[in-house]
């Protein structure tokens, strides 16, 4: 059975018109302002949309009035219309142009720590004066800021000269730990042909998932979803208390092969975030005969997550979940299936908002069942919709009425409810 609605087309057209009237029109300038002024928001949309295209992410934000899930959906929809032209050369974090690199595990790491572009260590106070200042004061402030920037630039230049800035080298903290014997050496994974790497955009996600699919799913996961599950893990629903081993933000070169000469060249750089967490875990100790000797020992284990765009909170929470998913008996909300199925922004938001669509027939059927059970109970003297007879609440909303087709909505006043 279908329920037909008349006048829908015109109503939808008017609804879109009203939306635009209230949200406001946008043009190319609006889009470019968003791209310039809100890079972290743009990065979030690109990361979750799994497509690095700053201008289009900004357009999606403008078009959706800032609704993140709508913007991500639009970006993914656009992506699905584009042919895959190439696979880039695999990126190693140690080859990135690094602008921020910190470790909470070690204070002295090879290459040192640079805070980079961040507001992490600033006061979170609204700069109300920006709204209140007049044009003259604004001019004076800008002149003053320009002077300060010049002084800072001179200081930065001197610091750069002292440290040989052109030769910046930030080896991975994990590689340094391996060299120091703190982590086991990496198993040799021959770099596969990129077209053979498992790809969640082309194959279904099955469990246990190949690690490549797990990491790809985390890379395109919903920031809020990953944070919520990661936070639950941090608060106590997980068995580990990790430390941030390394967070790095930087620019990665996208290198593809020239189709005529097969030489590699860069088509440009993209922003990338890379995060590792580390924790000590118990494992079975191995005796001289390479057999478990019944004892346990502690060893360090890494969790990892990376994404396109700069998004530290998602990658730190994602790295914690990566670690949690590998534990022998994870909390139910930290199993691989639970985490990966529930953190895709398009799947989850799409399923949630589909409930807004008419479900008249589905709900009508449910109502029929409720009524028929209620009727059967009434005839048998067992009670009503909501009660077993002994606990029947008089005047309860939806209480059965003799009148045929009685509405479930209570007829009484709000006070009676």
């Amino acid at each position, binding site marked *: 059975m279908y329920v037909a609605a008349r006048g829908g087309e015109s109503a939808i057209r008017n609804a879109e018109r009203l939306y635009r009237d209230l949200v406001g029109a946008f043009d190319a300038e609006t889009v470019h302002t968003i791209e310039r002024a809100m890079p972290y928001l743009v990065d979030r949309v*690109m990361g979750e949309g799994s*497509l*690095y*295209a700053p201008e289009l992410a900004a357009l999606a934000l403008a078009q959706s009035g800032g609704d993140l899930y709508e913007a991500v959906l639009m970006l993914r929809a656009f*992506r699905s219309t*584009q*042919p*895959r032209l*190439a696979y*880039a*050369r*695999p*990126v*190693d*974090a140690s080859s990135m*142009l690094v*602008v*921020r690199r910190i470790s909470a595990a070690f204070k002295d790491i090879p290459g*040192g*720590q640079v*805070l980079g572009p961040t507001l992490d260590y600033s006061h979170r106070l609204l700069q109300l004066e920006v709204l209140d200042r007049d044009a003259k004061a604004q001019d004076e402030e800008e002149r003053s800021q320009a002077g300060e920037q010049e002084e800072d*630039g001179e200081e*930065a230049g001197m*610091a*750069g000269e002292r*440290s040989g*800035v*052109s030769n*910046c080298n930030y080896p991975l903290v*994990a590689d340094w730990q391996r060299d120091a014997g703190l982590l086991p050496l*990496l198993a040799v*994974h021959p*770099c596969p042909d*990129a077209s053979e*790497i*498992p*790809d969640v955009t082309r194959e279904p996600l099955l469990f246990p998932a190949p*690690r*490549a*699919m797990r*990491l*790809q799913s985390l*890379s*395109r996961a919903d920031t809020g979803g990953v944070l919520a599950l990661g936070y639950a893990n941090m608060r106590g629903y997980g068995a580990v208390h990790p430390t941030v081993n390394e967070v790095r933000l930087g620019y*990665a070169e*996208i290198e*593809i092969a020239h189709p005529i000469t097969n030489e*590699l*060249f*860069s*088509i*440009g*750089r993209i922003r*990338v975030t890379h995060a590792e967490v580390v924790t000590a875990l118990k494992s079975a100790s191995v005796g001289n005969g390479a057999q478990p000797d019944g004892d346990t020992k502690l060893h360090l284990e*890494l*969790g*990892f997550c*990376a*994404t*396109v765009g700069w998004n530290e909170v998602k990658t730190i929470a994602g790295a914690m979940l990566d670690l949690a998913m590998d534990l022998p008996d994870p909390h139910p909300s930290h199993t691989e299936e639970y985490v990966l199925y529930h953190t895709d922004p398009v799947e989850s938001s799409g399923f949630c908002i589909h409930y807004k669509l008419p479900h008249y027939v589905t709900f009508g059927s449910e109502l029929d069942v409720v009524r028929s059970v209620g009727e059967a109970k009434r005839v048998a003297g067992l009670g009503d919709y909501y009660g077993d007879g002994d606990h029947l609440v008089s005047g309860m909303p939806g209480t059965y009425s003799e009148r045929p087709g009685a509405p479930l909505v209570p007829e009484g006043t709000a006070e009676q409810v």
Partner: protein
Amino acid sequence: MHPLSILSRASAHEVISLADDILAQFEEIQVLQNRTGIVMLPYRDSARGVTFHLGEVLMAEAHIRSRLPSGREVEGYGACLGRDLQHALAMAVLDAALRGGVEAERIEAFVASQAAALAAHDSALLTKVEATRVTMETF
């Protein structure tokens, strides 16, 4: 460094302007491909060493075949981030010109000047990054 690695990050306006100037040197140009598409970026996991797909990147590409005044045919290719088809097409023209020895010195000089500008930009950025270096002390 490959000239295309510089041209892809150089000012699109200047790359297109140079290609427009050089275009007259070709007898004819056939555009084999000029389109947008995506490139998948594999990334190395530092915890287990597995390579996985980090995400896709929007790119514009162009592939041309041109005939030089000598009658020789030469192909050129260009690609850049985003969806600027003209930038990619101009890169392909310059690539074909370099391959065919058309105004090679002029193009190489342009590439060198753009490379210097990009290097200066990187150096300025890294100097600012260096100014945020912290040294931890244990009390």
